[in-house]
């Protein structure tokens, strides 16, 4: 899993039927210090995340598991909203 910040929402009217009702978000992957790392990407939300929040996401085949028994096509799914990150005994972020 990796940390990311939610940048915004993706609206797609024409999409796979299996994506109906799912929320697509644009996220910016972050390192442990919450610095941007890599390119923004599209993620499906499974926990009610919103713009500006720090989240963590799961990659690969496992990204579709939160929606079972629905078979949702995803290789990047937000699986948690971060309250705080403790790094090197340092308090990095508090998010509410």
């Amino acid at each position: 899993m990796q940390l990311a910040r939610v940048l915004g929402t993706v609206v797609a009217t024409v999409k796979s039927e299996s994506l109906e009702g799912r929320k697509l978000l644009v996220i910016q992957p972050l390192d442990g210090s919450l610095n941007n790392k890599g390119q923004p990407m599209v993620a499906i939300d499974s926990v009610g995340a919103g713009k500006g929040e720090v989240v963590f996401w799961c990659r690969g085949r496992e990204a579709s598991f939160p929606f079972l028994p629905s078979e949702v096509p995803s290789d990047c799914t937000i699986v948690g909203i971060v309250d705080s990150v403790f790094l090197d005994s340092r308090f990095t972020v508090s998010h509410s």
Partner: protein
Amino acid sequence: MILARVVGNVVATQKDHRYEGGRIMVVRPINPDGTDAGDELLALDAVDAGAGDTVVVVREGWSASTTSTGSPGAAIDSAIIGVVDTVEGEA
């Protein structure tokens, strides 16, 4: 699997139910000599690792899910599956 050092942890109230009771650790990949080797990722702890520990992290879903939650099928792609005592060898 990769070698990594545990550098912190994440607290999240709202999360996928399969993460309940698990410890979400921040790990930094390292080289065999202990130098940093990339950006941090999150891994679920399966072996009671602690901050500062050198660990083995598996980055594959079935293995990560099974070791950290006891059963497969969770949205978990990485888990700490060993605490390293020593690494020996030559570069």
